[in-house]
């Protein structure tokens, strides 16, 4: 399958007061045509930063792209002039954000906000833009589109707001849609509907998608392949089935164990002890060592490499590599 996006060695560093935080520290990623790739990990592990770096939504006043490239259609997105980047954003790569209410501008109607992206990237006339807006509203399953287009964001429910945002992302038939925790702010019942919508868009229109989430359940339901991130690096990568059947990295195992199950009769829910530490550059140790049940001296003295052990499968752990797969 053809690769639509190839990220190599992406490094995005935040410059805090006295130190440099390597939010993303050398991530390789390939997105193939029509696939749904999951990026999973806890808050603060760098998954959103990967997406934001690619699409150029990072605040350059304190964030630095310290290395790497993101090749899309022969161009390196990380070093594209802003004018060129604006031409790609919204038309060929679009994004769906986490919080639908705050992601819509409160003072403009839904129609205004959907049509804006069409006005920028297409030369459709007014009537054609209106017709396209109606069509998009129907595609994302908003009933009575004519009336809803005249509404302001606060007049819609959270689920409808997220559908409107998805309509905006779909408007120009992009090749890639990046969804950054698209259901985190929604009710569980609405979550399922939105996920179904995202899945059907992926299947019907063959759009390549990156789904960023901290929820392993969503990954299992939605994604073809998964990349597990921790501390700004990829710790394990592979097809969803393989990751769920035989997780290699202790962190991945922890995440899987943390999915609550009705079948288990345990009273307490499992959680990985500790929180994601804030790393300072340079990091010369296994980033997960402090929370890992198997860590030893080696883990805190040098950083393991990401080792590929089968097609599409790789893991970053001394122990797994030594003990064999």
């Amino acid at each position, binding site marked *: 399958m053809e690769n639509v996006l190839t990220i190599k060695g992406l490094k995005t560093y935040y410059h805090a007061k006295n130190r440099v935080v390597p939010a993303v520290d050398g991530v390789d990623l390939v997105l193939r045509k029509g696939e749904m790739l999951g990026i999973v990990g806890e808050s603060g592990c760098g998954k959103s930063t990967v997406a934001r770096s690619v699409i150029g*939504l990072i605040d350059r006043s304190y964030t630095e792209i310290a290395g790497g490239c993101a090749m899309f259609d022969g161009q390196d997105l990380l070093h594209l002039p802003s004018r060129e980047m604006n031409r790609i*954003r919204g*038309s060929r790569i679009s994004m769906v954000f986490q*919080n639908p209410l705050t992601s819509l501008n409160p*003072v403009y109607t839904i129609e205004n906000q959907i049509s804006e992206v069409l006005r920028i*990237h297409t030369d459709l006339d007014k009537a054609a833009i209106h017709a396209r807006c109606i069509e998009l509203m129907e595609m994302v399953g908003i009933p009575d589109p004519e009336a809803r287009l005249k509404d*302001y964001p606060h007049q819609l429910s959270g689920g409808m707001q997220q559908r409107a945002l998805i309509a905006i992302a779909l408007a120009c038939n992009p090749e890639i849609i990046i969804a950054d925790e698209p259901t985190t702010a929604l009710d569980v019942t609405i979550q399922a509907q939105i996920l179904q919508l995202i899945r059907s868009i992926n299947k019907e229109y063959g759009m390549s998608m990156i789904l960023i989430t901290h929820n392993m359940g969503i990954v299992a339901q939605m994604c073809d392949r998964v990349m597990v991130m921790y501390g700004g690096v990829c710790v394990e990568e592979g097809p969803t089935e393989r990751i769920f059947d035989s997780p290699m990295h202790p962190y991945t195992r922890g995440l899987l164990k943390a999915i609550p199950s009705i079948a288990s009769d345990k009273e307490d829910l499992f959680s990985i002890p500790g929180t994601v530490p804030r790393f300072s550059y340079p990091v010369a140790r296994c980033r997960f060592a402090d929370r890992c049940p198997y860590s030893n001296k080696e883990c805190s003295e040098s950083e393991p490499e990401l080792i590929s052990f089968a097609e599409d499968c790789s893991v970053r752990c001394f122990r797994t590599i030594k003990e064999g797969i």
Partner: protein
Amino acid sequence: MLKYALKRIIKALITIFFILTLVFFFTRMSGDPTNWILPDDATEEQRIEMRHSLGLDRPLHEQYFEVMTSLFTGNAGRSYNYLRPVSELYAERMGATIRLGLISFSLAALVGVSLGTIAAVKRNSFFDRFTIMISIAGSTLPNFVLGILLVFLFCFVLRLLPSGGASSASSYIMPVIAMAVGPMANIARLTRTSLLDVLRQDYLDSARAKGVSEHVVLIKHALRNALIPVITVIGLQVGTLVGGSVVVETVFSWPGIGSLLINGAKMRDYPIVIYGVMLISVAVTVMNTLVDLSYSFLDPRIRDNA
């Protein structure tokens, strides 16, 4: 919406009514106008005669009733000193005040919003710090002090500008600065704060993700939201500006309604004082009502609740 507007207008009328009532009683308590109308050596008979001809010897409630009805029917009486209808006197001088007010107001709004916007976008820069400093100085310095300082500097030391009057374009410079600096400082400060808050909002990133260029993000998406609270303050500054005009016109001998009102008050010219206060309070309440109503046009979230 219509009901809300109607409610606001009725409230405004009640406010004006109370202000006029207060001013009526204050003027009657302020002293005998005949001291200023008649020469110092006038006899007591002449004074009684004068009070009678002005209707000031009638019972207070009769006077009050007459003044109020005449104001609301448009006939506001004659000035004791100028011996002409006060509405005429004010009409003649209204133009000068409105010109001065409009110029100062536009300058304050334009410069204030621009300074605040640049300061917010270039946060923590030298320009930002400079703007904060200027706006604190500007909003704490009373306009008459600023006016006197300006006269001292530009008129007596540098001899560049006329000290008063409205004879040429250059005579506008100092009064406009004296009136505009305070409101401008407040507008700049609020624009900065409000915009800094909006610049953190998620919807700006959604706009960027749509491919909207950075200056359109700033103007269409950020400023449109940031200016909602600023518009209120701009509206309320009109009140400050009208009040300020009374003082500034006196400092610069500006031939407007402010100086007429002050002179009227000095000479206990009751009709002038009452009519002047009415004009100013109508202007301020109309402006406040407009600001209130404009809210719902600016912010669709308020439209539904109103």
